[in-house]
């Protein structure tokens, strides 16, 4: 199994949406797996280490990156994401380790 590290990025979180006054939007943190098609959000934390963690980060999924769910494969898995102008796919199981801040 992947080495699971307890990681949370709350303390040095570079927020996507700048100039936001507190309380203006209700932000909600969910797992990437649970995002819907066309829904956008901002990566809040990657909760896995080891090879998987490294791969996810190397592809640009680091806290602060804006992602949009582009769609899902015909059998609902894997999931296709749009970030930084390219399309990335990953399995739901892998998307479980990615926490995203989305607007409520």
């Amino acid at each position, binding site marked *: *199994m*992947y080495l699971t*590290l*307890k*990681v*949370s*990025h*709350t*303390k*040095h979180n*570079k927020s996507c949406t700048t100039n936001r006054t507190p309380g203006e939007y209700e932000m909600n943190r969910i797992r990437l797996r649970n995002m819907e098609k066309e829904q956008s959000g901002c990566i809040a934390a*990657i909760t896995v*280490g080891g*090879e*998987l*963690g*490294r*791969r*996810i*980060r*190397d*592809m*640009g999924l*680091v*806290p*602060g*990156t*804006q992602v*949009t769910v*582009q*769609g899902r*494969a*015909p*059998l*609902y*898995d*894997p999931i*296709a994401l*749009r970030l*930084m*102008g*390219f*399309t*990335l*796919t*990953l*399995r739901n199981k*892998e998307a479980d380790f990615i926490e995203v801040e989305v607007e409520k």
Partner: protein
Amino acid sequence: MEATVALAGNPNSGKTSLFNALTGARQHVGNYPGVTVEKKQGTCLLSGRRVEIVDLPGTYSLTAYSLEEVTARNYLVNEKPGIVIDIVDASNLERNLYLTTQFLEMGLPVCLALNMIDVASKRGMEIDTEALAVSLGVPVVTTVARSGEGKEVLMRAAMKELDAPGLPPSIPISYGEDIDRVLAQMKQIIVKGAFLTGTYRPRWIALKYIEHDEQILAQGQQADAAVAGELEMMAARLARHTEDTLGSSPEALIADYRYGYIRSILQRGVIRYTGGRNRLFISDRIDKIAVNRFAGPLIMLAVLWGLYNFTFTFSELPVAWFELFFGWLGGLVQTHLPHGLLRSLLVSGIIDGVGGVLGFVPLILFMFFGITLLEDSGYLARMAFMLDRVFRVFGLHGSSVMPYIVSGGIAGGCAVPGIMATRTLKSPRERLATLLTVPFMNCGAKMPVFALLIAAFFARHEAVMMSVLTLIAWTGALLVAKLLRITVIRGPATPFVMELPPYRLPTFKGLVIHTWERTWQYVRKAGTVILGVSIILWSLMTFPALPDSRIQEFDQQRQTLRAAEADIVAESGEDSPTSELSDEAATLRRQLLAVDNRQAEAALRYSAAGRLGEALERISGVAGFDWRTDMALVGGFAAKEVIVSTLGTAYSMGRVDPEKSGSLSRALTDSPNWRPLTAFSLIIFVMFYSPCFVATICIAREAGSLKWGAFSMAFNTVLAFVLATSVFQIGTLLGF
């Protein structure tokens, strides 16, 4: 002095196009020492100067996790190319620069090729190359690799950088206060202890210790255990500290800071967007349909069917030419050499054997052309995306689909290109499981065997049987893959994390080069061993020859027949076809032929292969096979269609053309040794037993060790035997 330039960059950044544009036809493919990663090299003449160009494997990063990345890294460190040309996709700058930061960390001289600049401007991006060059401290040149635009300027810039004296200036990236502090401390220790500094830069070594890089940790332990221990302790202490204060591992922080560094550069006016950044491009619009839940699978089926038809329809004619050529060659030898061992060796051994394998070349050429087209256009990645959920159940990867299809997933392919097609799979365990199971598919060479047996015993259910056999092959292959993945190739699934590259129209030049390269590799691999194996198999079926007394027996029979009236004998010896002869002469000719065929059967039975068959009969009897079948199966190791011709000889049918086996199928129906259950048991055995020897060699080469080739032969044969025996015994019990 000859200069060496390494081409590096992300997959889909246009690296291969640039390599082709720079080197043209002056390139060759080899392997990096000890690994199965392809190494492409070529030369480029630049105002009279010869420049050696090495195309590194396309990677997103330089971790120690994947073979490609380690290979690229080792090459850069050990071979010390004069300069690294880093090809970045201008329309996807942010992620592409991630690899660039890692080259800079290594302190390598880098020249940036800002490729696909045309796509970027079409997407509404303006890039200030000057600003980018200043921020990164490396020369930046814009290129369009597809058309070769900018390649001269790029090479000139690279040469200028290469000739510049002194070490390249390194811009240290900051990874935050905590990590930077420890990095500095570690660097001191490394410099003082001259720890691995002959190979790597001190700061980079320190960084790898903090990242917990397996390769560097192992090298460090070997070089100086004391210093290594100290560094490991410092890294561990740092890890605990960042976990406590920032809730994050140093490795994660370093990746974050690399992207932070890139973003800070890009935001400093390097890149300007006119129009929305994540708006839908043509590619995304195609994907709305191409990977749609309903239309997607249908389109995929159509594409597969198209590829399949393309390959087998278009290769039919050239394959026939090859067969014609080898047939002509065989005929030539047949007529010009006297009857004897040498002729037999040349015709039945070498020409038939080598011809059989080289006959695949056009098929493979077309197959690779089709695959290259799908790969270069970006559709292959979509297929992997759509099918991953299915293949994952069996411990495979979405990209496994292509090798299976090519090998005969739709009955009639060939395992050899299938095995070679597994190269598109980047996950090592999934790839191995795929290439070990693709030979179970019903390839074109197994088809004549199935056709023979179906015609003989299941003639009324032909179509149903073929579909059932395809289903059995898929089920078997996938279940065995699963079995392998939980036993000998155990291990977690490699992360799927895969890019869906934008659709691109492949360039003709790229297609041709790529197709030729793969085909030539097949010819070389198959060609080097085939001769030896052909001769061995021929010897097995020829020696020991029948003793003289037995040969005299057959001669006697011929004499007796020829004792008939002289004019009939003379007539039967003429070249005219049997139908034009008088009844007596025709009968005589048939009788003489029958004697020849009986002699061939006797000779075969007397040969080493025949004896092996008889010896095996005791074991194979439980699966319902007699010595004739056993011997045919031994011959089938050369190529599966040999099973039909060997059975033909064994049943005194003379040379049986695998395509026209009607008489043989009648002989089988009439034989007391055969019933439908026997035929079905044999079908199962042929489907699953050892891959033919060309496929076995390909497996050994692609898996990187002879061990896997041997494993395939042994494991598949045992599996096939167990399955066939179960079929036969259970069937017998049930009264079939």
